[in-house]
């Protein structure tokens, strides 16, 4: 609703906990990996995705239907949470959900850059962030990247985008613009957090997310051996890396793995790091960071029952569910076996 007045964690947490009970568990996933895309859509229609599948069923089919229904449901659920929460609770949740604004901005920029049609861009947006329909409409109507930058003038992305636009004009690559959006989001994420023990936990979680993002980026850079300055991809706010250590470590995979294995995340990421050394696959590491965040989120949700943390825990679990179902549907479409798909899922 708004950031004014006192917050109402009791109400939001009760609703979120009820919703959490409706998320798919092990049982459902086991059934889903054995279904065809059409069956998955039917299964979703019989659970909490009913409205979305029905609304989109006439226009799309197969995996597209699943994908759009997932996005629409995610957006509806998160918009709902923002609608219910008031006061400082709203501020804390909006901080995290702004990542969908960042996602939308990036999608629009990429769409405009590749000359995609307005409808094609629109279906890929996830309207879960803080942007209202009017701003999204203006973004969609923009026919050049400059117009997108202009439409975002009065948001937190305005200033960084304007600065990055000059660079974009020179080089004609999207990287500076996308980095500007990401950085604007992450800078606001950890800025001026209020005090209190639950908030400290929340902050620790956000920092872990930034750390994992940095670690994954660094590992990717180190393995690809590309001549890109790692410092350009560095995100401020984490505890694990500083700009300099990241720049130094990203040149050598072994050193980087060593560094992460000795950090405070050793317990969570240890097995995945060993696997990374053995089979040389980044996927396991990325899944391990996701699972570690999810497990951390679960723990957060029970330590301080009446605070922002159970809400964040739900948001994470919901996102994970969306990604799992999408992985199943896409895997089925590509003809993977049930076992292969199961290894792609992150279930705690």
């Amino acid at each position, binding site marked *: 609703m708004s950031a004014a007045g006192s917050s109402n964690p009791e109400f939001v947490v009760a609703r979120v*906990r009820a919703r959490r009970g409706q998320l798919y568990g092990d049982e459902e996933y086991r059934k889903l990996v054995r279904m065809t895309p059409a069956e998955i859509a039917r299964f979703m229609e019989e659970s909490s995705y009913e409205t979305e599948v029905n609304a989109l069923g006439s226009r799309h089919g197969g995996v597209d239907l699943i994908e759009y229904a997932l996005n629409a449901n995610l957006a509806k659920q998160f918009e709902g949470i923002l609608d219910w929460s008031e006061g400082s609770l709203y501020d804390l949740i909006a901080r995290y959900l702004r990542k969908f604004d960042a996602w939308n901005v990036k999608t629009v920029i990429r769409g405009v850059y590749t000359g995609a049609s307005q409808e094609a861009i629109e279906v890929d947006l996830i309207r879960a962030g803080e942007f209202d329909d009017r701003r999204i409409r203006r973004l969609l109507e923009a026919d050049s990247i400059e117009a997108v930058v202009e439409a975002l003038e009065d948001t937190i992305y305005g200033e960084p985008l304007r600065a990055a636009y000059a660079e974009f004009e020179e080089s004609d690559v999207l990287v500076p613009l996308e980095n500007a959006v990401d950085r604007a989001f992450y800078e606001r994420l950890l800025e001026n957090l209020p005090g209190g023990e639950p908030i400290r936990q929340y902050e620790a979680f956000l920092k872990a997310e930034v750390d994992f993002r940095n670690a994954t980026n660094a590992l990717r850079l180190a393995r690809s051996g590309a001549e890109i300055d790692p410092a350009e991809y560095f995100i401020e706010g984490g505890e694990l890396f500083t700009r300099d250590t990241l720049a130094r470590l990203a040149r050598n995979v072994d050193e980087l793995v060593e560094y992460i294995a000795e950090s405070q995340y050793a317990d969570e990421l240890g097995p995945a790091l060993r696997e990374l050394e053995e089979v040389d696959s980044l996927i396991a590491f990325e899944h391990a960071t996701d699972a570690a965040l999810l497990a951390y989120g679960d723990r957060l949700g029970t330590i301080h029952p009446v605070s922002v943390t159970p809400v964040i825990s739900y948001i994470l679990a919901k996102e994970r569910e969306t990604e799992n179902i999408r992985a199943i549907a896409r895997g089925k479409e590509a003809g993977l076996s049930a076992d292969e798909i199961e290894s792609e899922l992150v279930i705690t």
Partner: protein
Amino acid sequence: MLEATNELGNAVLSTGGTLTDPSAAAALAVGLAALGAGYAERGIGSAAVGAMAEDDDLFVNGLILTVLPETIVILALVVVFIV
């Protein structure tokens, strides 16, 4: 203002004092207990309404849990009969 309160306090003390009067103290106890119950019900009530919004079947459970702190007031009422 402060002096006025002081004078009031002196006056109250010299005439026997309100709070040393047992029934007044009992009344205060009941009032404070009711205040505490109200504060407790605020949180439980909003959580109950949240749960009900998701699932109508929780109405009875929500109602029971919401009025549970009311027992504090009833226990406090015992004091009234003792004094």
